């Protein structure tokens, strides 16, 4: 290799790469995209630490995606003066997360468990994958990974294109939506405005999603396929009793250490709610679970305000409604002496 040749090539490569990055970032920003965080195991592990050492009094939330959309963390923190530690995982049953906290003797705090029946009682191993991966990553995280994650968060906070589920090479290729052979199960790529995640793991739907009828229709079709299309019957008998027992064992452990646990059922609406109510009747799967595990619960349908809430794509609240839901949830929790301070902040 001639000496100057590689140097010239290197300079050209650097310039072209930087130009591409700048153009790519500006392109997506011009389309309305802002920097958000990858809602991955790294962000989860960073938040998991907060469950043990919050800066102040805190409530930990576990569940699937609904509580991530429906709990407005700034509103929660403003109204309660306490932290909200969001450990829910999208598309995932929180049972493993509940067991993880139950087995962690250092956890003695307050825990809210959100129930989305299709995932909570679902027997598909895929519903536990993300939880397994996240807990394992947290437990085995190396110092190098911790440093990399912190550097990654700093970059993600400033660069919009660093959102893997929207702009990575694989997502862009999968967006081509080529037809598959019969029987091949491939997860659809969600609309780019659907899931935006903040540094404290709150998720929300961007205006570009809420304003797009096509995107909303696409997303409801996704729920029809993923949530309503599951042909397996709901769990019953011994399997259900075993799940109840696992819940009770984990929650008893937390309560025995001085912690508190409460279950919530966040809103869903339209055909999806009708499907859920029919497949998982409330008396058996909500009231029955609370009775059997001796836990308290807050069901959205029992509150006049939240009972009538409409989810734009049947499953999650818009950010505006999330603020209202959060206020109502706080009010319900206050009735149960959830907060150390009884002062109500307007």
């Amino acid at each position, binding site marked *: *290799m*001639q*000496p*100057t*040749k*590689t*140097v*010239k*090539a*290197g*300079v*050209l*490569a*650097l310039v*072209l*790469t930087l130009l*591409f*990055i700048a153009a790519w970032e500006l392109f997506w920003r011009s389309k309305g995209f802002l920097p958000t965080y*990858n809602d*991955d195991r790294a962000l989860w592990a960073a938040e998991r630490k907060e469950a043990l050492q919050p800066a102040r009094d805190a409530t930990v939330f576990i569940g699937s995606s609904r509580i991530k959309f429906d709990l407005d963390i700034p509103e929660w923190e403003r109204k309660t003066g306490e932290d909200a530690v969001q450990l829910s995982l999208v598309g995932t049953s929180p049972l493993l997360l509940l067991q993880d906290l139950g087995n962690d003797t250092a956890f003695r705090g307050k825990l809210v468990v959100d129930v989305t029946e299709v995932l909570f009682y679902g027997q598909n191993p895929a519903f536990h994958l993300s939880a397994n991966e996240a807990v394992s990553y947290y437990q085995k995280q*190396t*110092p*190098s*990974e911790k*440093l*990399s994650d912190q*550097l*990654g968060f700093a*970059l993600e906070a400033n660069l919009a294109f*660093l959102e*893997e589920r929207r*702009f*990575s*090479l*694989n997502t*862009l*290729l*999968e967006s*081509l939506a*080529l*037809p*598959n*052979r*019969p*029987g*091949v199960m*491939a997860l659809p790529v969600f609309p780019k405005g659907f899931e935006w995640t903040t540094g404290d793991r709150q998720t929300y739907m961007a205006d570009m999603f809420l304003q797009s009828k096509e995107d909303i229709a696409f997303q409801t079709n996704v729920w029809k396929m993923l949530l309503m299309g599951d042909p397996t019957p709901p769990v019953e008998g011994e399997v259900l009793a075993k799940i109840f027992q696992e819940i009770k064992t984990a929650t008893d452990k937390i309560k025995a250490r001085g912690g508190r646990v409460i279950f919530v059922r966040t809103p869903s609406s339209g055909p999806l709610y009708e499907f859920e109510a029919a497949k998982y009747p409330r008396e058996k799967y909500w009231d029955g679970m609370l009775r059997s595990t001796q836990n308290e619960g807050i069901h959205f349908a029992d509150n006049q305000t939240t009972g009538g809430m409409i989810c734009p794509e049947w499953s999650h609240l818009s950010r505006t409604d999330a603020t209202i839901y959060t206020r109502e949830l706080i009010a319900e929790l206050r009735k149960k002496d959830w907060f150390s301070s009884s002062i109500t902040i307007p």
Partner: protein
Amino acid sequence: MLFNSYSFVLFIAIVVGLHYMQLPWKLKKINLLLASYLFYAVWNPPFVLLLWASTALDFFVGRKLYVTRKRHQRKVLLALSLALNLGMLAFFKYGNFLLQNFVTLVSWLGFDYQPAAPDIILPVGISFYTFQTLSYTLDMYRRRSRPETSLLDFSLFVTFFPQLVAGPIVRPTELLPQFKTPRQANAAQFTKGLLLLSLGLFMKVVLADALLSGAADTVFNAQQSVAMIDAWLGVLAFSGQIFFDFAGYSTCAIGVAACLGFHLPENFRYPYAASGFSDFWRRWHITLSSWLKDYLYIALGGNRKTEGRTYINLMITMLLGGLWHGASWTFVVWGALHGSFLVLERIIRKMQRQPAITKEMNAGEAVVARASLLPAFVYGKRFRLVFSMLLTFFLVNITWVFFRAADFATAGRMLASMFGITENGIAVLPTIDMIKVAVVTVLLVATHWAMRNSSVSEVVAKARWWKVGIGWALMLILIVLSQKSSDSFIYFQF
């Protein structure tokens, strides 16, 4: 620490910054040594103790081995070094495997023995640095080179971070002399190092992880038989993934070392263009195969004894080579297959050296005899090369099934799917994954074919600088676009 991580970018920037400051060479070596320990410790700090133990053991035993004249004493020292080095490897890497096999054996004999499952963590890269230090001890025993007098240089030889956890496995004579004089890369060497680092990351992040690993995982993790096309694409995906993953690491290691002014040996030379298994092992994981040849195969007698003994030596070498990769019988079978193909190739070559067709006939008769069997082009040199390359690639892919499958049931299911023995195999690969695997595999094989007698340096030297710059930029852009889809290197577990 992974090359494909943000922490490595910060780490290497600091290390290079310190390396190019106006400091005494000894201080720079201390900087490199501390950086190497840090590089290893940020994965699991306590395991640095193993590195220290290995370093101290081989430094002192090696020197003693060289100076001691008494044969018996030398054998005791060698046995001590081998027992401790291989003992550590056996405990950490093969402890679970040995226990499982012991339990199976006693249960077969009718005893009910259920020990508690041991929770042994495998120290990353232990197979690599154990072999590296062993080569020093064995060289001292054979008095092939003089013992190292500087503990600092020897520690750096054992721990040099670019190649510490996944090779290339470096011989003492290759690396130790490089620590004797101050080393810095000039601008051209430095940028060449960066180019190799970029190429290695491109192979790992884009090709292995983003484009191929998904298809390989989907097929090999399927709980039932898959369709024939899926099985083949899954194996081809793994074939590409393992090459890009491992060769990517080696390329990064060579590039990082070059940025610091050091030279590391080549570890891959376009192996999928190999025209036979002996050629394959001259191109795949070259530093391991040459280690096995020098310290095991030749020590066993190599090909210096009878033909039968040569075959046995080949088989022993490849079986142990298989076991080096992982504590599982599937790796042993992988090694056995490679050993068998090497033996078979040797037999065929031997037969070809005494061809009946030319022995008994004159040239004209031979041509007529051949033509009556096969068209003339079949005997062409190029045709034979292409045929043997494709046959080797095909057989290597068969062996990868055992390398990748978690157990024999999976391997059996995969082979049955690949050869159409199973009916009703399910389709599992999305169309986009099939396209990704097909495109990358064709490009991979074509590139290996085109480059089989060349190197990256030669290609870059012939190309116009702006073409190199554009190609380099494309690799960097694709790395950036691949984002976090990358994971740790497969060979770390070995």
